[in-house]
C-alpha cells in the first residue's frame, strides 16, 4: 500500500535519530570522544529531513493535508480572530456541524468566518461527519454570507474537506442544488471574500467555499477535482495507483499556483503546519492581512468585476477561428 509507505521517511528519520541518541549515550558512558562524528551524522540527518520535506511528492502532500493533527478551521479562528460568536443553522432543516460559521473581529474589523470543520478524534469526527457537509451546511453558509453582505462584513472562508457528503439524505435534500446556489451567490456577493485552503480541498464540496477575491493555500494543502483514490478507481479500476494519479491531477499548492488558480502559497513549517502551530498561525495571519488590507481598500464594483474576470478566464483550450 503506497498509503502507508509514502511517509516512511518520517519513521526512518525517527529511527535514525533514536540510534544517534543511543550512540551519544554510549559515548558518554564509555567516555569515548565521538563528538565530531556525531555532529557530522546529526547534520547529515537534518539535511536528509529537510530535503525529504522540501521534495514531498504529490501523494505525500495528500497524506500531509489529511493529517488529523493539522490545525482545523476552529483552531485558526481561535488563533487569528477575536470574540468569535458561532451562528448555527440553515433555518430550514438543521445545523450542520461539518461547516462552522459566525462573526468575529479580525484586527478589530468585524468579519464573517465560515469553514469546513473536521474532528480530531473519532467522537469529534462522528459529530462533524469528518468535515463532509450536507446541503444544510451549504445553506447555512449561504445565509451567513448574505448576512455579511448586509452588514458589509468581509468574508473569510477556510476550506478543509474530503468533499460534500456522498450519502442518501444529502442527495435527498439536494446536495447539488445547495452547492450550485452557494457558487452563484458567492460570485455576486457584494463584500470582499478571501478563501484559505488549509488542508484538503475535495471537489465541489470544497469549491463551494472557494469563490473568492483571493484564494490562499497552505504549502502542504491540496485542492482537487477528485480524490486520487477516486480517480485511480475510475480510470484504472484499481485504487493501487492513487500515488500516480495524485501526481497527474496537479493538486498541490505549487501546481495550482503555477496555473494561476490560487493567489499565494502560505509556507508551512518544514515538517508541516501542525508541528509548529504558533509559526503557522503567525504566517497565516500575516498573509491574510496583506490581502485583507488590499481588498478592503477597493470598491465593491471593482471587486465584483475582478472576481467575475477571475472565474471567467479559467480554462485552457484552443480555438480555431475559422469557424462561426
Amino acid at each position, binding site marked *: 500500500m503506497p498509503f502507508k509507505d509514502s511517509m516512511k521517511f518520517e519513521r526512518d528519520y525517527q529511527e535514525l535519530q533514536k540510534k544517534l541518541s543511543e550512540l551519544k549515550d554510549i559515548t558518554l558512558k564509555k567516555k569515548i570522544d565521538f563528538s565530531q562524528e556525531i555532529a557530522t551524522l546529526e547534520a547529515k540527518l537534518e539535511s536528509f529531513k529537510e530535503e525529504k520535506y522540501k521534495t514531498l511528492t504529490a501523494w505525500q502532500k495528500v497524506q500531509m493535508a489529511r493529517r488529523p493533527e493539522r490545525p482545523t478551521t476552529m483552531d485558526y479562528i481561535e488563533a487569528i480572530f477575536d470574540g468569535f460568536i458561532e451562528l448555527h443553522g440553515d433555518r430550514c432543516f438543521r445545523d450542520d456541524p461539518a461547516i462552522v460559521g459566525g462573526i468575529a473581529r479580525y484586527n478589530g474589523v468585524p468579519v464573517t468566518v465560515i469553514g469546513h470543520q473536521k474532528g480530531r478524534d473519532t467522537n469529534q469526527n462522528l459529530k462533524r461527519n469528518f468535515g463532509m457537509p450536507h446541503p444544510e451546511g451549504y445553506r447555512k453558509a449561504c445565509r451567513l454570507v448574505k448576512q455579511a453582505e448586509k452588514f458589509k462584513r468581509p468574508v473569510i472562508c477556510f476550506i478543509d474537506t474530503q468533499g*460534500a457528503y*456522498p*450519502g*442518501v439524505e*444529502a*442527495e*435527498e435534500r*439536494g*446536495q*447539488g*442544488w445547495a*452547492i*450550485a*446556489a452557494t*457558487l*452563484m*451567490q458567492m*460570485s*455576486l456577493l457584494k463584500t470582499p471574500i478571501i478563501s484559505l485552503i488549509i488542508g484538503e480541498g475535495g*471537489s*465541489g464540496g470544497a*469549491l463551494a467555499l*472557494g*469563490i473568492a477575491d483571493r484564494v490562499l493555500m497552505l504549502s502542504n494543502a491540496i*485542492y*482537487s*477535482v*477528485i480524490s486520487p483514490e*477516486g*480517480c485511480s478507481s*475510475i*480510470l484504472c479500476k484499481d485504487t493501487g495507483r492513487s500515488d500516480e494519479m495524485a501526481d*497527474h*491531477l*496537479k*493538486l498541490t499548492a505549487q501546481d*495550482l499556483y503555477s*496555473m494561476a*488558480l490560487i493567489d499565494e502559497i502560505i509556507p508551512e513549517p518544514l515538517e508541516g503546519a501542525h508541528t509548529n502551530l504558533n509559526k503557522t498561525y503567525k504566517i497565516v495571519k500575516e498573509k491574510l492581512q496583506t490581502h485583507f488590507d488590499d481588498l478592503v481598500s477597493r470598491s465593491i464594483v471593482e471587486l465584483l468585476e475582478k*472576481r*467575475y474576470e477571475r*472565474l*471567467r478566464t*479559467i*480554462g*485552457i*483550450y*484552443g*480555438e*480555431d*477561428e*475559422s*469557424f*462561426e
Partner: protein
Amino acid sequence: MLKDLFNPNPRKKYITLPAHTEYSSAVQGSVGACPKCGKLNREEDLETSFKVCPECGYHYPLTAGERIWIMTDENSFREINKGLQTTDPLAFPDYAERVSKAKEDTGLEEAVITGTAAVNGEDVVLGVMDTRFLMGSMGSVAGEKIARAFERACAERMPLVFFTASGGARMQEGMLSLMQMAKTSAAAARFHEEGLLYISVLTHPTTGGVTASFATLADMIIAEPGAMVCFTGPRVIEQTIHQKIPQGFQQAELLLERGMIDEIVPRREMKEFLGKVIALHKVDSNAF
C-alpha cells in the same frame, strides 16, 4: 412544422435534414430491446416516437444531434463557438487518446454543443450535451461554451435553454475542470441579473459537477421522465458509505415529489412546452 413532426405516415421521411449542420437526423446509437420493459423496438418506430419506447414510455438517451433535431424548428439551429478545441493541459495519461477516440466515435468535437435556434417559433440560445463524449464531462471547453452561451443570450436578450447530461467534471483536466463549475455558475448569476429567462432540462443522467453548478441554477428546472439526477451517483454512495439505495432514488419523479424540480415533461411534449413557457416571458419590459 410541429404538425409535420407528428405526421403518422411512416413512408414519408418526415423531416428534412438541416443541410448546414452535420448533427444528423437519423436516430443513432444502439437501439433495440427496451432496457425497461424489454420490448424489441424497431428503429423506424423509435424514430417516429423520438426514441421513447411505445410500450412503457422509457426515454432512450439521445445524442446531441438527435436532441437538436427533435427540439428545434426545422433548419433553425446554428452552432456557435464550434472552433473551441480541447487540449491536454495537464498532460494527463491517455487523455489525448480518449478525446480523439471520442471525436472519432461520435463525430463531435466536444461533449457540449451550443448554438442559436428556434424552439416552437421562439428564438433561443440552446445548449445540448452528449454523454457518448467522455460521459458528457465538463472540462475547459465545455465550461467555456456554456459561459459563452450565457453571454450570447445576454447580448441578444434571448432566453437560454440547456439540455444537460453529464457524468460531472472532467477529471483529466484536474482543477481546471472543477473551476468550470464556478465559471458557469458565475455566468448564470450574471445572466439572471439581466432579467433573462434560463430553462434547464435535466436529462439522463445529470450528475456531479454539472448538477452542482449551472444545471440547477435555472429559473425553471425541467426533467425528462426517468432521468437520474444527482450529485453523487448510486454506485459511489454504495461504495463509500455502504448505504442501501432506495428504489427510484434520484429519479426525476422522486425529485419532483421532493420539490427539487419544477416539472417533468415527456420528450414528445417538450418542444411545445418550452415554446409556451418562453412565450409567457415575452412581456413588455416597460409594463411596470
